[in-house]
């Protein structure tokens, strides 16, 4: 049968391939700090820079595109699976480079996020991606941020080459257990995902050691002062990187050049789909913690499952994306990375899912009322961080300000403490803000009432209202 092949314009390709890439969550440009250079274009900032916000409220930081949405794999949940009948297009390396350069000069984007469907075979696909990045860095002299998704099953040499060109590498875990992966992504296996992940993490560690840095990635400052955070324990990465006879687990540069770039200076990340299979939150948070400790990942992203394909193995097509659950998981992720919590403190076998009504930190505090109330003047930094309504910034401010004088509720508020949550748990000058009992039932009731609106908003993002105006009557009339 003859296939009608239509040649798309760059704009049409951009429409198709950006649309196909939008389900990838990661769009961060953080973690890498690089100065600009004369004759080149671009720099990177450690804090990351968002350039716009799309209608779903997610930030647009990188030019997030697929190189192609042709795919030989048939992952059930994916819009680009081989069995779907959708328009397919492929960018040439030059097209991607030009788009990136021109967008970057107009300050639309912070860099490139390049992912791809699998065309022909993983190695061929990866080779094309590698070619694109090499063109962009060497011919176009692009010095901005590049995030590259690796293709499971590609060869190690290519993985290594890509790592020396990009700032961040990610391998998508997609699903947290081997069983779910086998069920929904028959062409992938846990091995083809974890193996490159391990190699990348070893190489990052070895590369960091070779330039005189600590083997582990930089973490938020607050972790320096926390003795029992998840990053304080587990020297897994270091021991593996320094173990000399383990070079087959390292990705060494294959091409000799004068200036070898750092290997993925912004680290590695991954992404998991939630809601497509029936894992509990406990499994997800435990997996997350393990990824941070053992593979030293910089970020783990969650993506609420959005039903786009009909399949007997998947939730039905009219399932709403579990946005509130995703939100709770991200809150837990932050608690792991910035607040010194551990997965087992947040959830347990008996209580495997997060409370829909209150956030995980409040939930923890309510189960540990014996440590509260705390006096802000004397409480330790890690206890301050564990108090609802106090974050790393305000805890830092409290610790430095209390050396020079007494704190009161007014100044706490100015420092950024969210008193509507914090006031049940803290004392200033030996007093509470209001006369409230330290009782689980009472505080839970109060917190649920204050959280109610926020939770509803997260779960019902689609519904939007606007203020009524007397000039709207025509629309109302039209509706009636």
């Amino acid at each position: 049968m003859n296939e009608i092949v239509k040649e798309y314009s760059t704009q049409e390709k951009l429409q198709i391939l950006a649309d196909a890439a939008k389900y990838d969550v990661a769009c961060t440009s953080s973690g890498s700090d690089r100065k600009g250079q004369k004759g080149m274009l671009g720099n990177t900032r450690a804090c990351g820079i968002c350039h716009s916000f799309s209608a779903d409220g997610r930030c647009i930081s990188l030019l997030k595109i697929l190189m192609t949405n042709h795919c030989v794999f048939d992952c059930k949940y994916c819009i680009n699976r081989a069995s779907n009948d959708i328009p397919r297009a492929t960018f040439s390396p030059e097209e991607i480079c030009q788009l990136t350069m021109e967008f970057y000069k107009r300050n639309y984007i912070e860099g490139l996020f390049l992912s791809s469907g699998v065309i022909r075979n993983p190695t061929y696909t990866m080779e094309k991606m590698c070619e694109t990045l090499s063109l962009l860095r060497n011919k176009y002299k692009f010095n901005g941020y590049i995030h590259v998704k690796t293709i499971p099953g590609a060869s190690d040499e290519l993985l290594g080459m890509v790592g020396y060109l990009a700032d961040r590498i990610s391998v998508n875990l997609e699903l947290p257990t081997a069983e779910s992966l086998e069920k929904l992504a028959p062409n992938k296996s846990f091995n083809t995902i974890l193996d490159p992940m391990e190699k990348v993490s070893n190489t990052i560690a070895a590369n960091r050691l070779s330039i005189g840095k600590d083997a582990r990635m930089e973490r938020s400052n607050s972790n320096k002062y926390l003795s029992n955070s998840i990053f304080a324990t587990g020297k897994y990465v270091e021991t593996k990187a320094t173990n000399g006879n383990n070079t087959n687990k390292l990705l060494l540069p294959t091409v000799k050049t004068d200036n070898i770039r750092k290997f993925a200076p912004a680290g590695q990340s991954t992404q998991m789909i939630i809601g497509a299979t029936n894992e509990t939150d406990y499994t997800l948070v435990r997996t997350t913690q393990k990824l941070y400790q053992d593979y030293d990942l910089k970020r783990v992203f969650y993506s609420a499952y959005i039903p786009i394909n009909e399949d007997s193995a998947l939730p039905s097509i009219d399932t709403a994306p579990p946005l509130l659950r995703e939100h709770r998981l991200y809150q837990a992720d932050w608690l792991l990375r910035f607040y010194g919590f551990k997965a087992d403190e947040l959830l347990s076998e008996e209580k495997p899912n997060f409370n829909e009504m209150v956030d995980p930190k409040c939930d923890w505090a309510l189960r540990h009322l014996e440590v509260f109330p705390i006096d802000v003047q004397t409480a330790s930094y890690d206890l301050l961080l564990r108090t609802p309504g106090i974050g790393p910034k305000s805890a830092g401010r409290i610790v430095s300000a209390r050396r020079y004088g007494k704190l009161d509720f007014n100044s706490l508020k100015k420092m950024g403490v969210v008193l509507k949550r914090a006031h049940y748990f803290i004392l200033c000058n030996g007093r509470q803000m209001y006369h409230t009992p330290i009782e689980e039932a009472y505080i839970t009731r109060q917190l649920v009432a204050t959280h109610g609106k926020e939770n509803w908003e997260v779960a019902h993002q689609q519904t939007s209202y606007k203020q009524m105006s007397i000039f709207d009557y025509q629309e109302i009339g039209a509706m009636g």
Partner: protein
Amino acid sequence: MRVFSCEDKFEAMMTCIYDAWNWALTNGHENVRLQREPIYQQSMFEEYEHVDADDEKVTKVIRSIRKQISDQAYLYVFYASLSCEEDALNAIYNFLRVGFAVGANVCSMYANPHVMRMMEIKRKIGNEAHYFREFARFSSLNNKVYVCHLEPKNNVIMIVGEHFADRMPSEHWMIIDDNRKFAVVHPKDEQNYIRYLTDVEMIALKNSEKYEDEYTDMWRTFFNAISIKQRENIACQRNMFPIWMRKHATEFTEKPE
């Protein structure tokens, strides 16, 4: 009460602080207020004194701040001088009163209301500068010169310009503050400089923003394609990208006919 007033320029403000301080040494700090011009409504019971910039006094004030307090405090003072807040100059003065009394520790004394006010002002400047690092949009004039129009509340385009000088050193570009009528200009491979613009120049530059090419169009395409319908959340978008900042953002302006 005596009110010392000056132009909205850094040098003038420093001189103003010098003169006010000098007067306050004999009359008390409580009886001084500093304000930037224009002063729309004078009150009956206050004396007003206009101060003009004087280089020698400027040097003295800066030297004292850096020596007796800290370089960080000087940075705060400089940031606050860019603020559009009504009481910014007075806040600087009050901050310096605390600063000269306690020294370098002043920057972490968050419980002191004067220090806290200074932090708030400084934070606002830093935040707005960061917003415009994100949301500034350049339009290309024949791929040779890149022009960006901004209307920030605070005077932040110098800070924004620093960022782009590092980012695009080998391009010609300029960032124009439409309200304050001046521009940060960056010639290829050279240093930034500031240029005050005349009305004629402003009119000539006004049209540069309307310049469209295939990439402005493609950016709009990309912007619309990347959003997920099932997760639409306009309120969140508005929180993250406030409407007043969208005035010069390509993706929110309609394509001209």
